[in-house]
């Protein structure tokens, strides 16, 4: 770039430096675009291109290999039929009800627990520097590690139940991880344990950003601590709620490894989430069309939840 500018300067000494400046400034204008172009192209092809490809495949009768002849929405018809087969539950019915239970509890408990821990840590207590990383640390573990550790801890023959029996509390009974009706709640426990510390850190940052003057003013006006948090602090934390919700929602929907490591699918497949369903059908059962269709439905669900939420939150920004 500089070579070009220098050359043009030496060749046209009688002119002022405007042409070279314009080349330089044009290059400077284009530079961010040039630098971004490869990653932009990669995103377009590998994210949006493959989304389109998946949508296309879901309308074919692809089995082991992709086939490109459109055969109609048979995969969606099957999923639609499975959606209502609750007794005995079809794998798809199990997956989507589990998604509802897991998604709601995981997001709700993480937000509540994260906020609660953050408020406690924000009371200017001693040793905060030690406590904060302790809560934050589980986020540094992969889902596989979390899953395996909790699998051993919750296993009635190895972990908590066995230990308490040895200590003499023999009536203690906790076998959720082996129980088809409760296994999904063990996934919630492990997931919450992992993510709530991170959410706490987000809320803590938000709390530190609140102007102390507002708090003092409210206290002078006679607000109780509860009112202070209920009416002032929590409403001010709204942008943090948005970020935390987005982070948690996508973690919940892409949870796959946690289910596999913790339950290996659960008794009779009772811990499946839609992502497990998708992988199982696409790669193990050679029903690529059904797998693609379920992936498209997952995408639609995320879009249906996130887009309106983002829209309503972000358009109020320029107040």
């Amino acid at each position, binding site marked *: 770039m500089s070579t070009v500018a220098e050359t043009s300067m030496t060749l046209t000494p009688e002119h002022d430096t405007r042409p070279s400046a314009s080349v330089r400034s044009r290059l400077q204008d284009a530079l961010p675009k040039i630098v971004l172009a490869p990653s932009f192209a990669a995103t377009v092809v590998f994210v949006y291109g493959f989304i389109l490809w998946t949508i296309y495949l879901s309308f074919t009768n692809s*089995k*082991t*290999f992709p086939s490109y002849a459109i055969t109609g929405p048979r995969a969606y018809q*099957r999923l639609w039929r499975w959606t209502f087969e609750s007794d*005995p*539950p079809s*794998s798809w019915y199990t997956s989507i009800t589990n998604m509802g239970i897991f998604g709601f509890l995981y997001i709700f408990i993480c937000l509540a627990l994260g906020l609660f821990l953050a408020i406690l840590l924000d009371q200017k207590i001693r040793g905060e520097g030690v406590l904060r990383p302790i809560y934050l640390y589980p986020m540094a573990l992969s889902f596989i590690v979390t899953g395996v550790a909790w699998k051993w801890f919750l*296993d*009635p*023959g190895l972990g908590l139940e066995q230990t308490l029996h040895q200590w003499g509390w023999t009536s203690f009974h906790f*076998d959720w*991880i*082996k129980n*088809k009706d409760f296994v999904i709640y063990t996934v919630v426990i492990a997931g919450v344990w992992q993510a709530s510390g991170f959410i706490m850190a987000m809320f803590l940052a938000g709390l530190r950003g609140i102007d102390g003057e507002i708090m003092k003013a409210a206290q002078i006006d006679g607000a109780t601590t509860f009112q202070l948090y209920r009416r002032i602090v929590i409403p001010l934390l709204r942008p943090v709620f948005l970020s935390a919700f987005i982070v948690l929602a996508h973690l919940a929907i892409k949870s796959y490894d946690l289910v596999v490591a913790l*339950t*290996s*699918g*659960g*008794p*009779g*497949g*009772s811990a499946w989430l839609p992502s497990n369903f998708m992988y*199982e059908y696409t*790669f*193990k*059962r*050679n*029903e690529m069309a059904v797998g693609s269709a379920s992936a498209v439905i997952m995408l639609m669900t995320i879009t249906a939840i996130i887009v309106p939420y983002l829209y309503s939150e972000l358009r109020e920004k320029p107040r």
Partner: protein
Amino acid sequence: MLRKLLIGTALASGLAFAAHAEDVKEVQMLHWWTSGGEAAALNVLKQDLSKEGYAWKDVPVAGGGGDAAMTALKAMVAAGNYPTASQMLGYTVLDYAAAGVMGDLTETAKKEGWDKSVPVALQKFSVYDGKWVAAPVNVHSVNWLWINKAVMDKIGGTEPKTFDDFIALLDKAKAAGVIPLALGGQNWQEATMFDSVVLSTGGPEFYKKAMNDLDDEQLKSDTMKKSFDNLAKLVTYVDPNFSGRDWNLATAMVIKGDALVQVMGDWAKGEFNAAKKAPGTDFLCYRFPGTDGSVIYNSDMFGMFNVPDDRKAAQVALATATLSKSFQSAFNVVKGSVPARTDVPDTDFDACGKKGMADLKAANEGGTLFGSLAQGYGAPPAVANAYKDVVSKFVHGQIKTSDEAVTELVKAIDDAK
């Protein structure tokens, strides 16, 4: 004119060059036999090939395991970059053959007489459209009982010959305070056990019609309901903590004497061998009661791809070595399975292996050698997995009665066909 001539010359010389090119002295192999015993067994083949001057090159698979390997293979084939051969199971071979990417070993097969030595039932998967496309490496069979002999002696049990005998034996173990049946509550283990239960309850003819031909009438028959009832009986003898347990942990329970018996394929013998236990003195292998004379099998195959001409010689050498009697014996002694040809001498095998080989030969001649539905040798993966779903949901209580199980089974299989 001149131009055409030039192109012609170039092409001709190119062809001549290709014809004179040195054969590639290398075998590219995709497999997931990486654990101790399996890797040792495969080493035998590597040495056989290196004696003939062929180098062995493993195709790396990230993550290991069969699923990862199959995903890697799919990608390689999609890119047109075929390995010389790949470890494959059952219907996968046929899927790839239907996609037109498999090679043709018929000439070698004729020369080596595979048509006669390889069991007919196996040829359904190694021959596609009259052409040999895969070399079977071994035959596993799943209708086995693995029993801890010390526990058996303690409770005074004898070999169960019928299903009722088996229940009586399990009752004895229960009375003695041992876990009667070691089961891992994962869907493939439950379905593998159910394969044997169906064969025992309905007999060979019924098994073939229901589990290999997927005949609707048989699938919803009373015999099938009876099979589910029998499965429900067996499940009452497992410990409460069985759900999700890995198969080798269930085998370990039998090895340690915590449990009396496991129903599992003959790969369980590898665990006994690794624990330095000997058949006859430490553990016993019986056919699942009521299935003597029949063999439910699955088999590992080396699928041979349609490689360029300069790599065909290496492929033929690999296939020939794979089905040679010496390798079949050496490999299967280590692996715990039995040879994929019936004319291999059984001198190096232990008692269980000898019985397995004799049974395979008899079943092949008597027409009672059937593919295991749970292991993907009875029907394509979509159907096999639908079957595993139903069996597993029945075991874990999502499906409550055998009537309901039969209805669900027919529906699931029809849906997946």
